[in-house]
């Protein structure tokens, strides 16, 4: 009977590290403890981690000639980000204006809701089901 040598691989999180293991029966024994999981024995296999990332920090050496657009975030939400920065500025003790901060925070929350909807739809527009009378 043919036997399969394919081993199931798994990942798990360990603080800011990712652990990659492969499973086979009684793979590792230490101090009378046996586990089915061992570290990957093969080198140069590609691991790709898909996820949610933080955007790059703004460039600190900008000039008028070298002023790139913020391409990582869709353009319709750039003003939402500015709104948040303005609200934070109004919480600065040198220019504290709580009413203004509250207003811009509310504007930011409004934009955030739209952005969350957009993020879930991932550039797809919603379908509309129209009733049709036969």
């Amino acid at each position, binding site marked *: 009977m043919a036997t399969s040598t394919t081993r199931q691989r798994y990942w798990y*999180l360990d603080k800011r*590290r990712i652990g990659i293991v492969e499973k086979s029966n009684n793979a590792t024994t230490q101090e009378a403890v046996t586990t089915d999981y061992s570290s990957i024995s093969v080198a140069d296999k*590609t691991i790709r*981690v898909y996820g949610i990332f933080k955007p790059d920090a703004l460039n600190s050496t900008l000039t008028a000639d070298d002023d790139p657009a913020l391409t990582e975030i869709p353009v319709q939400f750039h003003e939402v980000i500015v709104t948040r*920065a303005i609200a934070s500025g109004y919480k600065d003790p040198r220019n504290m204006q709580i009413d203004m901060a509250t207003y811009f925070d509310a504007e930011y929350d409004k934009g955030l809701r739209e952005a969350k909807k957009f993020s879930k739809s991932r550039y797809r527009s919603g379908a509309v089901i129209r009733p049709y009378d036969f």
Partner: protein
Amino acid sequence: MTQLEMIELVRQHHEHLGETEIRKLLDRALADFAAKTEILESSATFSTVADQRYYTLPDELLKIKSVWYNDTQIPQLIGKPSIDDSTSETS
């Protein structure tokens, strides 16, 4: 919108702030926006090293959606294996 345009918009409200301070406010706003909306999906790639268990994740990664081993999606293990047989810690 370009970065300088964003800085200029903030400055219209906060003339007392310098460019560096405004940039920090915008950076914090960007990070907050990305974390709350999960709008920025991307991927990070690295290669396995024989017998190495752990690989350091990029600082920019906020949340893992899926992990692929040689173009095949692999499942997440709930908990941790009871033995760590790795020879080195990080890539």
